[in-house]
């Protein structure tokens, strides 16, 4: 298992996914690195590139969720303090701002379906979640984003 090859194959996907969760480039970097570090200790080979990608996505998602929990505990800041903090490096974009208004699971779902091209059934299988749950979650997200998209996720 060549780590560098796998890294180069999936780093963009994983980094964007982490960014979707954490809304912050520094934390996204940390989470991406941690995800690939998990890969270092994995001993079983992957069945395919798709399996490899799905494993990394699930691993990164779990790490980000843990980081968010930790972030909530350790980095809570008063609103007054936040006003004097320097602006984050996150690209300013209206679409991103709208995306960030969604809850983290919906953001992840929109990213996986619309950008990575996963089907709802595939995401449901990956997460072990009911398909209908994901469908309604995606519908709500689309409503929020006022997204004029064709039903191409089937």
């Amino acid at each position: 298992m060549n780590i560098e090859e796998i890294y180069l194959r999936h780093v963009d996907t994983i980094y964007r996914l982490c960014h979707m969760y954490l809304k912050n480039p520094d934390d996204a970097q940390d989470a991406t690195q941690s995800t690939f570090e998990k890969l270092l200790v994995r001993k079983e080979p992957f069945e395919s590139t798709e399996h490899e990608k799905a494993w990394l996505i699930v691993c990164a998602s779990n790490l980000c969720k843990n980081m968010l929990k930790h972030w909530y505990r350790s980095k809570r800041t008063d609103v007054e303090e936040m006003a004097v903090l320097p602006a984050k490096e996150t690209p300013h974009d209206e679409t991103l701002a709208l995306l960030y208004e969604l809850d983290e699971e919906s953001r992840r779902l929109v990213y996986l379906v619309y950008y990575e091209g996963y089907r709802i059934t595939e995401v449901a299988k990956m997460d072990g979640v009911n398909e209908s749950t994901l469908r309604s979650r995606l519908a709500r997200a689309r409503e929020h984003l006022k997204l004029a998209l064709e039903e191409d996720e089937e």
Partner: protein
Amino acid sequence: MTKKDLLGAFETLTPDRETKKKMLLALEEKASKPAARRLPFWGGAVVVAVAFLLLWIVVPKGDWFVPKAGTEMVQSPEALQEEADVVSAPRADATSAPTESEEETKMGATPASAEEPAEKQTITNEYAEGEFWIMEIEGVEDLDALIYLIPEDAVLIGSGDTFLKYKVGEEIWEIKIEDGLTRLIKPLDE
């Protein structure tokens, strides 16, 4: 919002070449190091147990308890009983001998130096027989309890279940049980 807008927004999140290289270098550095050995679950329990033990020994209460617990584990019930007897004897002396100060009792006065016999023992008969003076005593359960009858400079030269033999100066004194009767036999004073 169109799908194009959405894809464009996601695209802006793609890391630049420098960031990717930085992450890859960190990953390679991590890969080159041996994996950190994590303490197994039971290892944590052992560490906690050892810490508790150390704390128990270090705190005054633990310091007091541990040596005593060790002694108790070594001593047999008989030895403990003997120890209890030794401890209780001076107290009995202190109450029965009002002339003896408490300080003297603390300094280790034992039945050997006591002036008075135990309550149950009574000298029932004294007589001369040949060149010996014989005292008959009742209520003796332990020959050692008669040591108050022997001078302090006496040296024990023989002992058995039924007799104790002392050398007092040039004389030989003997305490022995015969036919259920305890006798102190010493040379007749000239």
